[in-house]
């Protein structure tokens, strides 16, 4: 900041350096046929809106549960059934055992067959005794409760079939 020692007035930094340039610009504008305003405008409240929009976009994204996840669970359950069945029938089967099946063959079977199991059928073969939905919701990488409920609402036909303990959500 430049000080005037006689009367203590001050001017902004670089004021005199840019004075000539600003004066010339003004003269050019006053003599010119070019309009001083170019006519652009922005919608009312746009600058408040854009601030919020930018903020939304830089927030870390929550990865949504995809529909295919339920097929993974189904496939895992079916794999358990197949393994158990093969294990118990091993003594009766002379020619083939589970060890004879390559993993690729099991994978191919699941991929090529539509295993249409209901929630109840899956619940019968997979034990959830030590696992409740709250374990998932409260785990380290917890899923937001609203997102979880929204997912279940969209992807499960009969939400009552899940036998949720609604008290936990109240």
């Amino acid at each position: 900041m430049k000080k005037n020692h006689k009367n203590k007035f001050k001017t902004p930094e670089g004021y005199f350096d840019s004075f000539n340039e600003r004066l010339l610009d003004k003269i050019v504008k006053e003599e010119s046929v070019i309009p001083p305003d170019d006519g652009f405008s922005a919608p009312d409240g746009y600058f408040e809106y854009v601030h919020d929009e930018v903020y939304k976009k830089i927030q870390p994204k929550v990865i949504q549960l995809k529909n295919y996840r339920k097929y993974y669970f189904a496939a895992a359950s079916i794999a358990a059934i197949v393994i158990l069945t093969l294990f118990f029938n091993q003594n009766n089967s002379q020619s083939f055992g589970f060890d004879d099946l390559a993993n690729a063959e099991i994978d191919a079977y699941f991929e090529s067959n539509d295993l249409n199991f209901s929630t109840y059928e899956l619940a019968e073969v997979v034990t959830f005794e030590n696992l409740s939905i709250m374990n998932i919701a409260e785990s380290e990488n917890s899923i937001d409760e609203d997102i979880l409920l929204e997912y279940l609402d969209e992807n499960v036909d009969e939400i009552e079939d899940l036998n949720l303990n609604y008290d936990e959500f109240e």
Partner: protein
Amino acid sequence: MIAEEALVNELKNKETQTKAFEVLVNTYKERLYWHIRRIVLNHDDADDVLQNTFIKVYKSIEGFKGQSKLYSWMYRIATNESLTFLKQKSRKLGVTSAEMQEQLVENLQADVYFEGEEIQLKLQKALATLPEKQKLVFNMKYYQEMKYEEISDILETSVGGLKASYHLAVKKIETYLRAD
């Protein structure tokens, strides 16, 4: 004027990043918007480019070395984003850049966020005939009232070169506006 160095440090620090980014957006959103708008002309496009500019700034702040001012760096990003946006748009429409410029100016007549009259429309037509650099320099100097030094930092061109571009642009536009 915000203390740039302190703000850059805050932007690089995870704990202070969010607050500092808010200061950054609030300080520059209007200036950058008008800069972008004068390149892309349409409000919706300017909105997209402005948001992308801030997101790019946020993601690249770690790489900002402070060789230029934060202000100049952001203007440079905004300029590049705007020009890239226009190139992509013309490619998508299958027209040349010049054809698209004409189209953009034509569209201004129906744009609710363009309050210009005949003279302003004619000005945009004149600007559409200028080379990219002259158009940028003219808008930055005449309408954004930036100093040559600031424009020089942003466009990485010498002050002498900018002065020549500006005077040429003014002459061409005046000639265009005076013609019937």
